[in-house]
């Protein structure tokens, strides 16, 4: 299990880090983005999508409501958010296995609640924000390569 820790100080740095990280793991790759509301999961996804699919960061928005955003034709990047799903049956109906088998980069938010539905080989990125009175935008980003 390999781990690494990064610190970013604003949104642009977080996007740039995501873009750099995309060079670390070839597709097919599954990347879990783990963190509280407002931690910066979607911001990091913008950078990763730029790195993997050449997608413009401003075109990557939150997939909470539609559950899955696809980018590229054919799709090179899947950005998935399980925030509003509660049961294994609901998640299974998305057909994630089919997506994991594609030659694409798959980013997942709020997926750590369903470990049995995830590939055994995956990257887990934990993002936390340090909030204080100075409106600090510092993010701690910890990366773990899982090979269960």
């Amino acid at each position: 299990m390999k781990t690494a820790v990064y610190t970013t100080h604003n949104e642009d740095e977080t996007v740039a880090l995501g873009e750099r990280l995309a060079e670390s793991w070839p597709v097919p790759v599954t990347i879990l983005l783990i963190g509280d509301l407002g931690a910066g999961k979607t911001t990091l996804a913008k950078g990763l999508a730029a790195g993997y699919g050449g997608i413009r960061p401003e075109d990557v928005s939150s997939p909470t409501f539609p559950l899955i955003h696809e980018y590229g034709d054919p799709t090179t990047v899947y950005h998935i958010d399980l925030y509003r799903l509660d049961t294994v049956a609901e998640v299974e109906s998305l057909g994630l296995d089919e997506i994991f088998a594609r030659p694409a980069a798959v980013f997942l938010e709020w997926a750590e609640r369903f470990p049995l539905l995830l590939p055994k080989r995956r990257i887990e990125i934990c993002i936390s924000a340090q909030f204080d009175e100075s409106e600090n935008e510092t993010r701690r980003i910890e990366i773990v390569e899982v090979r269960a």
Partner: protein
Amino acid sequence: MAATVGPGLVGSLLVGLTYAKSISIVRNIPLIGVNHIEGHLQAVFLEAEQAGSPIEYPALALVASGGHTHLFEMAGPNRYRLMGKTRDDAAGEAYDKVAKLLGFGYPGGPVLDALAPYGDARGLRLTPAKMKGNVLDFSFSGVKTAMLRWSQSHELQDEIDSRRALQRVSHHPSLEQWLAVTPQPTRDAIAAFQHLVVEEMVKRLQSAVEESGARGVVIAGGVACNTGLRQAATERRVGCPVRFATPGLSTDNAAMIGAAAWPKFDRGEFSDLSLRAQPNLILA
């Protein structure tokens, strides 16, 4: 026979599209593919025409829902140009997530809208997002995080617990029941949140009207039901008449797909059976 081709979840799109193709073959009637976002907008145009007061062009069209916040300029019935869109959360998504973190359940956007008039927006200072680049783009992630921080820095656990308990005994609590478990500081925070989100939308509509010389504004999508937005956009005058989808046609529905298909039928824009679902389809 009309069906949605995108944007959306590929599985859902395939179910509808395949069903529509089957009926189209069996009945031998033309097949029309519709963009979901265009459906939201055309529902308002259809209603306006039925009411005998068609919307004038150029027009501005704002689609605000749980999944979209897109602002278009329309030079004519079929001519869309994207002026701005959300870079993170959709407006409706911000409502639903803030409602959940305050213990109002998910999706709870309409509950916040109902409670907002009982608070004083000056009770909590929220700052609008600074937009780099396109100033007509939207960002609602910051205000969502600000509300999370506000809730964490105030001792809200007891009131959040009582709101969750209320939902266990009553599936659709009344306004009075919600008010009984929502102390004044929280009502004020909700009012401040609503004020900021509505302001963000109205301000962009005002600048977009100035920029484009629009003669009509259309607001569609689930957030078109928001009373705060309806009031602000109507009273504050964005510079031209504003039309909202009626509540029944605001949230996702089939009639709006028919409404968007009708002009295509008139123009003879039919598809063959090779029409495929396009999860990431854009309108402009």
